[in-house]
Each structure stands twice: as structure tokens, then as C-alpha cells.
């Protein structure tokens, strides 16, 4: 919400408070000021290194150089048809000023004006925005000759003064503007841009903010006095209201004003509306908007005569009701809208007039025959965006106004505004809740402003249907509650004083000292246990009941007391049971090991597309998003391998060697229920084994065994012992001859291998093999081993190499297992260091060379003992796999 300080001043004395003070106090109390735009008032000057507080923009008007002046004659320019020379008085002397402003051109050559025109006059040396530059460019006014006439000063447009973007015409001030007064004193302003939190809708208006500020600074809130003369037949004789569903429409108020003259509003009013972000339309529409911005009650003005004509001989009867499905209404933006039963309509006996709380109807809107301009209510206003092509059936401007102020169900308005995509100032407020009490105040304020600006006469009385009064919330709190939840000691009197500043009604009772009257002289009259019964003021809908209401009221106590005055303390409560998070801790260990063996962690989008994962041959159901932000983010992933491959693909040309892993959930749909979210580990690698350097060339590419080695490191790092590998051709995305299942205690915990060439083709992954691995973390974790550290012996081992020749078909793992089994505890290490194939050993054979470590735990192993063990091993290998010891 944009709030001009000048408007705030109508309701609170701001003496001694700078704009920054105001912004700071509001910000700390929850009315966060996002920025301050200066429009004339002096701007803060920061020294080098001094702290800023707010995002600041705008311009200050030099008091000596920019003043109110009056033009008493508009003369032609001797050498230029489209320019004029203004004779004006700036309060000190006569000046002649050159201008090309079109909005004063019609007075050219008309001689001395019967009524002088008040303008904003800038003298030589004044700093202004350049009216003709794109965007906002500050410039200093300099002496120049234009077409032979010397120019040293100017009359300003709104753009030049930073009020709006308007730069064609000059500002024409109200007649009562005091000539010679510095413009900054007359109408210098600053606009606070305030974020309104959902629970602070009551403050989305000038009075709301003034009330908060008054409470925060202990100043008086000057509420507007609403008084106006009335005359003629009472509205009560002419109009009636029928509310069909009070839940949707708790209150509906109508007032009537006759004989209005539609014309522009006073300049100061227009300026305030513009600074608040609304476009001035005419005095009637402006009055509804002005009252809304000031009080928070959106109003709607109907052309009384249009309704009268529709009613024929009968009196006007306003009916509010839900729309029928498919019912139609042309709204004032000239769009025919098809309605649903969700929407609420304001109708007369002939049919719908407006979409309640959201937008008026075209037919009964306020009409100004001098301008084909729309009622702005409900339309988001942007410069130069007046809808075109509207033809009115009416030839006469609106003269009599029926003014509506109502209360609507905020959820209903919210849904309606969303359904028709009609965000507006009115629906913004109604969809966050406007107290029904404001309907009456709003209508009265609107009528007062219309009477003031249009010379209209208000009809006596209001028609007021109020079938559903909101429950006034009453909550009981004690100083003990304040202490228990806020941690501060406040007396009953202090609490009451804080709340009364926000217009809560407070009653103190239950003093334990006894009867309050008799205790009045004896102090204290209240105690820690005393109860304060608090009733919310009639502009608030955000205070609940019971324990919720207590929290609501305590929040107000804390806010007005000041969050900055609440001390910082340490929790005194006992410590909670320590349950830890073994899964999280275990996964963190996994991450550490993976990083230590050279893998980079990636974190991918959980959201992907079916097509993207189909490249891996993944089929089946997905967790699908009904409102995806993009087609490529329309389902939840079912494969973590797909995620790491995406990262590999993205980086494939950025590095000669890539090793990635990711840990996280995949999502498996369950019909009409929450999906399963099993956690997985995926690894992928491709590229060179060794980083190339100036003397390291032709490093080989990662292959199956590089991935396997890393998996072995990972599993041994996690202390798994009984690990085995079995070839598999059942993993669709893996090369059938270069893929393995990883088993621990015969349970499959994962698979790995080289990416299938046909799968690889579907990615942009370069020439080198791509190795991938995938683990099911739940299975792996369930097998989490216990282990003990083996003592380190002092006795020397016997080291020996042996090579055995076996058939190709014999798996190396089998040979190693036999060596280990046979060697038992005496063989502490078995390492395959060479695999040889060749003529020397015959075709279909391979030689496996192992380095063995023989070790006795308690003595020095002798060569003879080692030889005995070796002989046993060789014999076993001969028997089991037909191995021959290679000589």
C-alpha cells in the first residue's frame, strides 16, 4: 500500500517525527515499509559510511526555488505558435515564463484572466526531473534562449516534480494555494510503500496506519468528523434492501445524494490519489476511492436514475443473492462475464447490477457525458490504459447517486476475484476481511466528500440492512499469561494502557485483594492473578476466542510494547529426550566417504518429465502435478540415476573427468494416497582416470572396474564385509555384459555398470564410457554391520606371490574366495595383481597372480609354515577349479 505522509497528517500530529522515524516504528510493529519515495519533502542526507535505513527514491523541492505562483495572463510567443508566455507573480516579483503546456493553451491571447491560475513555479537553479527524458533524470534548471526569448524559469509538470509520469501539461493547483509559499511547504510529501500482512488487513487504509502510529507513539488519533447537510425526501422512502444470504452479505448500507455536478476533484485530492497509486477519474468516483483508501471500506456508486428507470413505477429494491450458474453480467470494463453460484450479485428486481465486492456493472455506473471515461472502481489502473470503444446508451451525465457500502464474506470474495481474475483495490480489501461496522462510516464519508466536491445535496437517512453482526470477541488475560508467553513482567495497568491505545475495551476484575472499590486507595489494587477482560474494537476481525484469542491479544501487547524492548533470555525448561536421527547421520557419513573418494555431490530437481526419464527405459505410474510450472517439471522423479545423468550431461564438455553422486528420495505413486519416498544413492562417472598434466598424457578413461573400485571403497568405508558381486543383464539401462548386482549377505543392495550404448545415445554424453551405480539406501542401511578393530601384530609377515592358471570361465572372485577360505586366519591379505592371457598358457585359459600375506598373530611366521599353507591352497584350487600353479 502506498501511503502519502500528508494524508496521515490529517489524523495524527507528526511533529517531531521524521519520515524515517515513522517508517521505522511502523516496520518494527509489522507494517513493513519497503521503500520511501520523496515527493517534495526534504530527503535524508547520508554521510560517507553512515547507515541507511530504507530504500529511498524521489526528489526534494528546494524551498527557495520552487514556489506557488499565479498566472494572470497567457500571451502568445512572438516567434512560435505552439509556445506561450505566461505573466506570473511568484510572491516577490513579476516574471515572464515560457511554456508549451497544452492545458493552458486555450487561454492564449484571452487577455488578463478573470481568475488567476495557480501554478508550481521553478526558478533558475532548481533541481527537477527532466520532463522530456525517458525515465527519471535529475537536471538543474538553467538559463536558455528559446526562439529568441530568454527563459530562466519554468512552470512545472507532475513529472518534473516527481509526482507522476505526466509531462504534457503543467500542474494547475487549487485556487486557494497561497502565492509565494514554498511548494514543499504547500504540498511536499513522502510516500511510504507498506507491505500489508494478511492479518493486518484492517490497516490497509490511512486511518488504520494512523491508529497504529498513534498507539506506537502515544499520540492522539484525530478521527474524522463526518457532518453534512441533508435535504429532500429521505432515502428510506425510496429504496429498500433484501439480503438473501447474511453469511455471504452480513450488511448492506445505501445512501443517496442528489444534483451532483460531475467534474474533476480538487488538485490536492487528485495528487493524493495519484501518490496512493489510483488514477483520478471524477469527483464522484474519486470520492468512493478516497473514502476507501482513508477508511478501508470499498464503496460503489450507482446512477440512481438508471435504477429508477429500471424499477419503473415501483420503488427501487436492491437484492443481494448468489448468482445462478451461467448468469451473465457486463462489468464496467465492458466484459460480459459468465457467473457461477459461487459469485454474489447485487441486483434489483430486473436483474444483476454488479459483481458484489469485486466490480460494478456497466449499465448503472456513474456516467460523465463530457468524458467517455469509465468508473475506475474495481479496475487496476495504469497510465494510458483506458479501455476503448465503449458506447454509452446514456446521453446525460449522472446527477443522482446511490452509494453502496457493504460487508461481504472474505473467502467468497477471494474465490470470486480469483475465478474472474479481477484483482482490485476493493477485492484486495474485501478478500482479507472488512469489518461490517465500516459500511456505515464509509457511506457517510463518501457522501460527505461528494457533497463537498460536487455541490450535491445528501438525502436524509440511510437504508441499512444488518442481519448478521459479527460476534465481538472478548478474551480474558492476566499478567501471568503475559509473563508465561512473552517473558515480560507487566502490571495490569500497563497491559490495559497498551491495549487501550489500540482501542481495545478493557475491564479489570478478580483482584485477589478483594473488592476493587474498597481497595482503590490501598495499593496495589491489582495482582498478578487479576483478570483483564478485553473486547476487540469494532474495526477488527482478527481477534479470536479462548486460548487463540489470548494469543491474539498478547501479540498486540508485544507489538505495542515493542519487540525491541523484550529481553533476550535462555530457555529454562528441562532438556528433551535425545532421539537423534540415525538415518540422517548415516547418510551424512555416506556423503563424507563419497566425497573422500572423489565424487562431487549434486542436488537435482525432484520435478522432472516422463520423457526425460523414459530415456532410461523407466515406465509406469508417476506422481503427477496437476498445476505444473512447466512441462519439463510435471512429475516427481522415479529415478535418481536419471537425475545424476542429467548433471553429467550438462557438464560433459566442461571437464575431462566427472564423478557425481546424489542422495535423495524418489517418488513412487500409491493410488489416491501419499506416495512412497524411498531414499536412493546414485553415482555416475565418465572421463579420464587421471587428471592430465604437462607430463601426464593419454590417461585411460574410467571403466567398469574404476566404478567397482569406488563402490568397494564406499562399502569398506561403511564396514560392510560380506560383499559379493554377480553379473546381471536385467537392468535395462546397463550394458548387459558390463553390469553387476551388489550383494551384502546375499541381499541385493544396488546395481552398477556401464551405461547401455542405446541409452547413452539418447543423451549427449561424449565418447568415453559412462558408469553408473544405484543403491537402495533403506536396504543398505538395514544391513549396517557392527564391527571390531583387529589388533595390529608386531610379528613380521611372510609375503609371497603365486600365479595360477584357470579356465576363462572361472570367476576371479571364486579363486580369491577359495584362497581366503583355505588360508583362514593365517592369510591376512589377498591381492590380485595381474591377469595374463596368452600363448604361453594356452587358449581359453587365464593366469591370475596374487600377492599373499601370511601372518601369525602371536609369533613370527616361518617360511616353512607359509609354504605349508600355500601348498594347501594350491591343492584346494586344483581340486575345486582345476587350477595349475604357474611355474
Amino acid at each position, binding site marked *: 500500500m502506498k501511503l502519502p505522509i500528508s494524508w496521515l497528517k490529517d489524523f495524527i500530529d507528526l511533529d517531531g517525527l521524521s519520515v524515517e522515524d515513522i517508517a521505522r516504528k511502523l516496520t*518494527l510493529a509489522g507494517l513493513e515499509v519497503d521503500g520511501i519515495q520523496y515527493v517534495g519533502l526534504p530527503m535524508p542526507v547520508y554521510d560517507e559510511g553512515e547507515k541507511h535505513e530504507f530504500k529511498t527514491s524521489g526528489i526534494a523541492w528546494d524551498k527557495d526555488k520552487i514556489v506557488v505562483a499565479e498566472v494572470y495572463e497567457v500571451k502568445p510567443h512572438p516567434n512560435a505558435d505552439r509556445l506561450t508566455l505566461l505573466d506570473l507573480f511568484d510572491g516577490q516579483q513579476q516574471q515572464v515564463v515560457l511554456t508549451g503546456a497544452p492545458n493552458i493553451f486555450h487561454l492564449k491571447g484571452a487577455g488578463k484572466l478573470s481568475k488567476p491560475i495557480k501554478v508550481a513555479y521553478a526558478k533558475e537553479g532548481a533541481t527537477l526531473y527532466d520532463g522530456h527524458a525517458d525515465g527519471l533524470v535529475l537536471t538543474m534548471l538553467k538559463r536558455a534562449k528559446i526562439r529568441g526569448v530568454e527563459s530562466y524559469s519554468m512552470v512545472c509538470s507532475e513529472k518534473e516534480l516527481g509526482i507522476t509520469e505526466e509531462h504534457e501539461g503543467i500542474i494547475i493547483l487549487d485556487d486557494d494555494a497561497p502565492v509565494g509559499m514554498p511548494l514543499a511547504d504547500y504540498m511536499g510529501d513522502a510516500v511510504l510503500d507498506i507491505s500489508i500482512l494478511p492479518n493486518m488487513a484492517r490497516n490497509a487504509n490511512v486511518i488504520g496506519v494512523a491508529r497504529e502510529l498513534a498507539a506506537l507513539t502515544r499520540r492522539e488519533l484525530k478521527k474524522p468528523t463526518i457532518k453534512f447537510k441533508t435535504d429532500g425526501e429521505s432515502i428510506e422512502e425510496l429504496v429498500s434492501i433484501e439480503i438473501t444470504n447474511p453469511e455471504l452479505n452480513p450488511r448492506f448500507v445505501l445512501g443517496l445524494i442528489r444534483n451532483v455536478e460531475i467534474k474533476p476533484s480538487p488538485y490536492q485530492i487528485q495528487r493524493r490519489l495519484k501518490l496512493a497509486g489510483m488514477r483520478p477519474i471524477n469527483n464522484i468516483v474519486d470520492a468512493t476511492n478516497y473514502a476507501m483508501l482513508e477508511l478501508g471500506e470499498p464503496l460503489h456508486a450507482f446512477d440512481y436514475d438508471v435504477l429508477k428507470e429500471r424499477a419503473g413505477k415501483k420503488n427501487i429494491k436492491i437484492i443481494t443473492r448468489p448468482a445462478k450458474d451461467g448468469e451473465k453480467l457486463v462489468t464496467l470494463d465492458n466484459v460480459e462475464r459468465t457467473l457461477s453460484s459461487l459469485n454474489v450479485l447485487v441486483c434489483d428486481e430486473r436483474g444483476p447490477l454488479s459483481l458484489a465486492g469485486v466490480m460494478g456493472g456497466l449499465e448503472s455506473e456513474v456516467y460523465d457525458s463530457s468524458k467517455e471515461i469509465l468508473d475506475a472502481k474495481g479496475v487496476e489502473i495504469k497510465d494510458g490504459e483506458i479501455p476503448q470503444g465503449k458506447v454509452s446508451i446514456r446521453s446525460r451525465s449522472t446527477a443522482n447517486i446511490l452509494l453502496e457500502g457493504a460487508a461481504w464474506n472474505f473467502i467468497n470474495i477471494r474465490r470470486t476475484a480469483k475465478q474472474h481474475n479481477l484483482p482490485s483495490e476493493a477485492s484486495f480489501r474485501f478478500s482479507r476481511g472488512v469489518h461490517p461496522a465500516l459500511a456505515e462510516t464509509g457511506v457517510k464519508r463518501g457522501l460527505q466528500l461528494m457533497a463537498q466536491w460536487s455541490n450535491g445535496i445528501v438525502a436524509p437517512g440511510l437504508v441499512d440492512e444488518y442481519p448478521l453482526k459479527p460476534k465481538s470477541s472478548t478474551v480474558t488475560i492476566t499478567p501471568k499469561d503475559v509473563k508465561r508467553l512473552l517473558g515480560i513482567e507487566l502490571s495490569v495497568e500497563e497491559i490495559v494502557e497498551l491495549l487501550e491505545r489500540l482501542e481495545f475495551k478493557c475491564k479489570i476484575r478478580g483482584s485477589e485483594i478483594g473488592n476493587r472499590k474498597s481497595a482503590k486507595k490501598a495499593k496495589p489494587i491489582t495482582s498478578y492473578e487479576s483478570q483483564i477482560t478485553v473486547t476487540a474494537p469494532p474495526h477488527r476481525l482478527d481477534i479470536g476466542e479462548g486460548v487463540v484469542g489470548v494469543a491474539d491479544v498478547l501479540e498486540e501487547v508485544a507489538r505495542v510494547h515493542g519487540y525491541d524492548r523484550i529481553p533476550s533470555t535462555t*530457555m529454562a525448561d528441562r532438556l528433551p529426550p535425545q532421539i537423534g*536421527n540415525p538415518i540422517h547421520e548415516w547418510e551424512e557419513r555416506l556423503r563424507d566417504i563419497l566425497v573422500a573418494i572423489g565424487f562431487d555431490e549434486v542436488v537435482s530437481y525432484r520435478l522432472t518429465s516422463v520423457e526425460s526419464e523414459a530415456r532410461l527405459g523407466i515406465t509406469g505410474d508417476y506422481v503427477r502435478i496437476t498445476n505444473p510450472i512447466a512441462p519439463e517439471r510435471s512429475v516427481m522423479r522415479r529415478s535418481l540415476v536419471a537425475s545424476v545423468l542429467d548433471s553429467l550431461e550438462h557438464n560433459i564438455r566442461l571437464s575431462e573427468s566427472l564423478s557425481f553422486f546424489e542422495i535423495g528420495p524418489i517418488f513412487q505413486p500409491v493410488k489416491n494416497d501419499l506416495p512412497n519416498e524411498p531414499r536412493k544413492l546414485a553415482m555416475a562417472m565418465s572421463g579420464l582416470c587421471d587428471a592430465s598434466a604437462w607430463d601426464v598424457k593419454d590417461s585411460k578413461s574410467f571403466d567398469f572396474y574404476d566404478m567397482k573400485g569406488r563402490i568397494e571403497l564406499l562399502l569398506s568405508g561403511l564396514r560392510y564385509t560380506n560383499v559379493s558381486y554377480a553379473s546381471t543383464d536385467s537392468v535395462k539401462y546397463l550394458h548387459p555384459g558390463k553390469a553387476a548386482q551388489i550383494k551384502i549377505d546375499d541381499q541385493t543392495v544396488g546395481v552398477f555398470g556401464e551405461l547401455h550404448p542405446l541409452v547413452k545415445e539418447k543423451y549427449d554424453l561424449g565418447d568415453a564410457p559412462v558408469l553408473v551405480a544405484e543403491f537402495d539406501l533403506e536396504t543398505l542401511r538395514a544391513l549396517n554391520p557392527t564391527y571390531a578393530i583387529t589388533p595390529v601384530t608386531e610379528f613380521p609377515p611372510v609375503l609371497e606371490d603365486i600365479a595360477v592358471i584357470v579356465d576363462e570361465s572361472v570367476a576371479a572372485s571364486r579363486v580369491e574366495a577359495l584362497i581366503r577360505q583355505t588360508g583362514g586366519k593365517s592369510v591376512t591379505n589377498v591381492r590380485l595383481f595381474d591377469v595374463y592371457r596368452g600363448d604361453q598358457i594356452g587358449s581359453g585359459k587365464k593366469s591370475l597372480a596374487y600377492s599373499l600375506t601370511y601372518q601369525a598373530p602371536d609369533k613370527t611366521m616361518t617360511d616353512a609354515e607359509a609354504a605349508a599353507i600355500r601348498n594347501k591352497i594350491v591343492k584346494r584350487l586344483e581340486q575345486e577349479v582345476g587350477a595349475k600353479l604357474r611355474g
Partner: protein
Amino acid sequence: MLEQLNEIEKSAMDSLQTIDNESSLDAWRVTHLGRSSALMQVFSGLGALSKEERPVVGQAANRVKIALEAAFADKTGAVKKSALERSLNEETLDVTLPGRTIHVGRLHPSTQQLRRVLAILAEMGFQVYTSREVETDEMNFQLLNFPPHHPARDMQDSLYVATEERGDNPILLRTHTSPGQIHAMRQFAAMNPKDPPPIRIALPGMCFRAEQITARSEVQFNQVEGLAVGKGITLSDLKGTLVEFAHRMFGQNARTRFRASYFPFTEPSAEMDVECFVCGGKGCAVCKNSGWLEILGSGMVHPVVLQNGGYDPNIYSGFAWGMGPERQLMLRYKIEDIRYFWGNDIRFLEQF
């Protein structure tokens, strides 16, 4: 004989003088001190001498041997020293050539930041609690005091999962980690429903919003929430705990500021700002010239939420706060584009 010894000594000494390398030294030793050297032959000839001559010549030969050995040792030292000097002079590397490296793995920056945050929280007594990422509307919103169609839902646009009609309880991707508050409270309360134990937990995890992926907004992001529930926990405890946290996270001198705010699941609610650590509070692009950075949202756990978690709000109270590790990194390292995080470009990842 004695003259011969003098000759032997002199010629050996003379030839030793000229030696300047280790192999010549070896040869010299063989020639002059070896088994077949003239000196050794004197020793082996001692037996042939008379009783009177024998000790005289023996002593003289010994003296020569000792002298030659000493000279040899000196010379060896000198030759080795000069050889070392020569080789040190010759073996000079171009130290500016690049070194040979190995690839070192890295944790994703979000993980690194999560670890920093969780480590501090762990020291403050907050244990890690994780929960699922796809939730019901009830868990994600309703039990957290966001009724259906409530305006506060505008703050969190949700991504919905396709299911059969489920009325007001659709399935969605969690928009915050706060459903974990309900899960955790219920789990703790179940330990002793009559007198539920206190809770101090940290809730990290991935959250989702229906937002376009741009430099400033993301469809997924990590969040960490802290939750403390117990008897007698106050707003001043919230302040104290969060100020301590800020000191650990952003430095002991970090200045903080609490602003009133609104979250449906806390009341009173507060936003904690930390003085901008980029400009020191003077105003810069990162803090949008305000001198303050919005770091976390917080508040006293709403009574409705306590109740929904199985904790009687008349007896228990608590506070919660939430923050974004990616946002913290963006502020700290002036990262201008949030898309880097899930883009996984190694040129980004390598910088952490």
C-alpha cells in the same frame, strides 16, 4: 724400510690431493690401503724382519696407515660435499610449472550450508528431524492453522498431486518443512500423552512452491526450521535463542532486529533481520539499501498448532523459526541467480 714407508705415505698423499670424485676415491683406497697395496705389503712383510726392526717398522707403518685413513676420510668428506653442491646446483626445477593434482570431491553448497546450520543447532540442543516431502493439505496447511481458502495461503502457492477427488484435503508437495512440526509433536506426545516431553528439533528439507524458475524464484528450495516446545517457553526465550544462533551463524558482533510479522502457525510472529554483512549496514544492493537482511521468520507456536500436535496450549508453549540455506548462501556470496543451485554446473559447484 722406514724410508720406503715415507715414500709410500708421500706418494699416497700426493695422489689423494688430485682426487675430485668418488670413483677415484674408491680406486685410491684400493691402491693405497687395499690388500695388495704397498703399505699392506709392509705389514705382511713384518714377519720377515728382525726382532729389533719389527716394532719400529710396525709402529711406523701403523702411523702411516692412520694418517692415510684420516686423510682419506677428510678427502671423502670434501669430495662428497662438493659433489652435493654440484648436484644441488644442477638439479634446479622450474617451480612455476603446474603441479599434478588429484580430483577431490565436494559437497553440494546447499549441503555445506545445511551442515553449518545444523551443527550450530545441534550444539544448541536441537536434534535433526526429517519427514516426507509429499504431504496432505491437512498436514501442510490445515493443522498448521491455514484453513482452506485462507488469505495466508496466498503466501505459499502449492503444487498439487493428481489424485481422485479428495475434497478439501488434496495431496501436494510440501511448501515448507512445518508439517514436520506436527509429525514431531505427535511422535513426542505419544511417548507420554499425559505429560508430553519437551521438544527441541531442527527440521531440514526440500520444499516446493508453484513459482516459475527465474533468477529470483525457484520451484524447490531447502528450508531449516527450529522448533522448541515445553513448559514456560516465552517470546523472550525466542529472542535469546535466535540472537545466540545469529551470533554463531553470522559472527559474535552480528546485530539483530526483530520486527512484528505474521505466519498462520505462530503468534506472536516476528521477522529477524541481521545487519547486512555485505556492507556493514551502510546500505548496498544486497540489502536493497536498508542495511538489514531478512534472515528468518519466527514466532511463538500458535495454540491451535500445539493442540493439533497433542500439546495443551494452556500448559505448553514453544517457538519455531524457519530459514533458507540457499538464501543465506546467496546473501553471503552475492549470488545473483538462484538457478545455479539445482543447475549443478561444476563451474558453480567448484567454487564451494
